[in-house]
């Protein structure tokens, strides 16, 4: 028995050394040509709970870097991506961010997914005066002079969507969401907007992360008879909820599910027939009809295979382009203040259309679209306009909040 155990340990050690070797070689491969390139940290997860969403962001970021390099790079230099996997663990994200900044000396990091991962990185980025480009939509109420928030904050999706819903679908809303900070914050603004638009909340419920049993909620929804179900269910719960809604014979004709998170990836997880007829409001859909988007979709599919492309992946893609523009514009790219300053006012033609960086608050002005899901797990776009300016602290909820970027 002892002998056998020894063998196992030996094999285990050998594996560890091998794996470590792999990690090392891939690391040095990307950081090989030092001196004649600008290092960019790319920080997402290949494993763990949120790998489901992060994989696409990683792919899109790396693709953008490749395209920028093929176009001649930035200031005549190539961008060198240094990829790190933080395995869906916020504390690991902080460790890896530190490693990227101090050991690899990257100029900026593109990465982060959950708010937890961003908040874990924030003190590290600030202490070491780095730059983080964060491509996700998030709940707002944060500002750091070292972070570029490229995704939408809740007011950008809701300010136009809620009035549209009350006008076209009805006034009675049932709010559901996963039980953590983002859905709760989104629904707070939804409630305020409903008050302004003569809507009413007939029910509100939150389920633990990862829950996939919705019999009881569907029951409550049937009792409450809302005109609109407003869902901020994320990840795996979303697909399970839409499926069981369908199981119980509810129909999007009378009671559609409206969402600011459900995207193409979720639709393909639940199947086209289940999602058909439900409504989402997002900055980008795969079906957006611009030449930039056609090129993006074609290139992405050619590189990574057919599969749904969603707004988050698109966001990671143009985030990287924004970063390249800022690097081009900044005089001293190693000065975090200058680099972040260079973002202000930048304009870019993203796949979703024109995107501008708000000159004041490190957030971004995006597009606004309403899409109705169809049988092919894609969205038919029925409304398109410019999104309102980002309000990290919603003016509705915090009319007198002192804006930290004005200090």
């Amino acid at each position, binding site marked *: 028995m002892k002998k056998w155990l020894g063998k196992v340990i030996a094999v285990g050690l050998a594996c560890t050394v091998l794996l470590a070797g792999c990690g090392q070689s891939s690391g040095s491969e990307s950081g090989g040509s030092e001196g004649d390139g600008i290092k960019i940290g790319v920080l997402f997860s290949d*494993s763990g709970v949120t790998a489901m969403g992060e994989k696409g962001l990683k792919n899109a970021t790396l693709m953008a870097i490749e395209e920028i390099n093929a176009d001649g790079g930035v200031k005549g230099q190539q961008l060198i991506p240094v990829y790190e996997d933080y395995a869906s663990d916020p504390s690991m994200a902080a460790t890896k961010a530190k490693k990227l900044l101090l050991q690899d000396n990257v100029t900026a990091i593109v990465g982060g997914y959950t708010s937890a991962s961003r908040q874990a990185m924030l003190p590290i980025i600030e202490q070491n005066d780095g730059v983080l480009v964060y491509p996700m939509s998030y709940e707002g109420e944060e500002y750091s002079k070292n972070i570029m928030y490229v995704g939408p904050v809740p007011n950008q999706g809701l300010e136009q969507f809620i009035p549209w819903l009350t006008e076209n679908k009805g006034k009675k809303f049932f709010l559901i969401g996963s039980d953590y900070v983002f859905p709760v914050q989104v629904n707070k603004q939804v409630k305020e907007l409903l008050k302004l638009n003569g809507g009413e909340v007939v029910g509100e419920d939150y389920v633990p992360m990862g829950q*996939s049993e919705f019999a*009881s*909620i569907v029951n409550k929804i049937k*009792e409450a008879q809302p005109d609109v179900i407003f869902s901020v269910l994320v990840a795996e719960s979303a697909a399970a909820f839409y499926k069981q809604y369908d199981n119980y014979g509810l129909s999007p004709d009378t009671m559609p599910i409206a969402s600011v998170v459900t995207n193409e990836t*979720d639709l393909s997880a*639940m199947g*086209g027939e289940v999602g058909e007829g439900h409504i989402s409001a997002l900055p980008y859909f795969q079906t957006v009809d611009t030449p930039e988007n056609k090129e993006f979709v074609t290139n992405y599919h050619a590189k990574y295979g057919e599969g749904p492309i969603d707004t988050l992946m698109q966001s990671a893609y143009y985030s990287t382009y924004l970063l390249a523009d800022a690097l081009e514009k900044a005089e001293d790219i190693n000065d975090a203040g200058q680099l972040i300053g260079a973002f202000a006012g930048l304009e870019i033609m993203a796949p979703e259309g024109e995107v501008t960086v708000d000159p004041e608050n490190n957030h971004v002005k995006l597009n606004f679209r309403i899409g109705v899901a169809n049988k092919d797990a894609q969205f038919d776009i029925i409304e398109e306009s410019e999104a309102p300016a980002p309000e990290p602290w919603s003016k509705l909820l915090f009319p007198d909040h002192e804006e930290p970027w004005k200090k």
Partner: protein
Amino acid sequence: MNIAQQIADGISVSGILLLIALGLGITFGVMKVINMAHGELIMIGAYTSYVISTLADLPFIVAMAAAFVVTAIVGALMEVLIIRRLYGRPLETLLATFGISIILQQLVRIIFGPAGKSVSNPFNGALNIGSVYIPYLRLFIVGFAIMLVLITAYVLFRTKFGMLVRTVSQNRSMSDCLGINTPRIDMLTFAFGAGLTGIAGAVLAPLKNVAPTMGMDYLIDSFMTVVLGGVGSLLGTSLGSIVMGEANQLLTVFGGETGAKIIVFLLVIIVIRYKPEGLFKIERR
């Protein structure tokens, strides 16, 4: 609130719990293996169902059969390669199977990608009795769970294989002395439990989500059902799932989703404190 509907839904939730806990009732209940990869066996069953019914477009029943075979093979391999070497060492088993669960998750993620997959519903429509509305799919799950319990009971108590399984689980060294090939029985028992778990995954795929991380959500519920009902008792697992399912469903009326979970967990803690052998363990000796 429509209480009749809540009770009906409670039954369907009980059916789901029974389905996911039945395999564990064998591997944990009978064999005493703490299998942390139990959820991943459910996931493998669900992915098999995705491959057969969505990709290959074959009937759902084929998917169920395939899920049993595939997960039984995975279970047999797990038993032969790892678990067999750790009998009588629960702590090491726990760590090793936790490792297996991560390996299986990542393997599926590499093969199928990290995004969720869809399996379409083979039983559209619903049964309507007065104000109570039960989708055929859920009805099927309950019926199927009961059928699986009966089959399992038959295998365990009416066949020679079942007798050997019980013999080995009660006294391994004595069975060895009597010339029973215990390693072979262990492997088959574990494979049988794994196969049952795989079928559960296949049947739940159209109702729930299919993703690499899905198994984690089922793991805790399965263990709680088995422990609450009484470890090692098939009847206990069945009754345990009814108690858990109904309690959870009825409590959501008052406590909301998160609240109901908390109250159910508290109830289980209290039960284990005062009845550590579980609610329905029948003492024999």
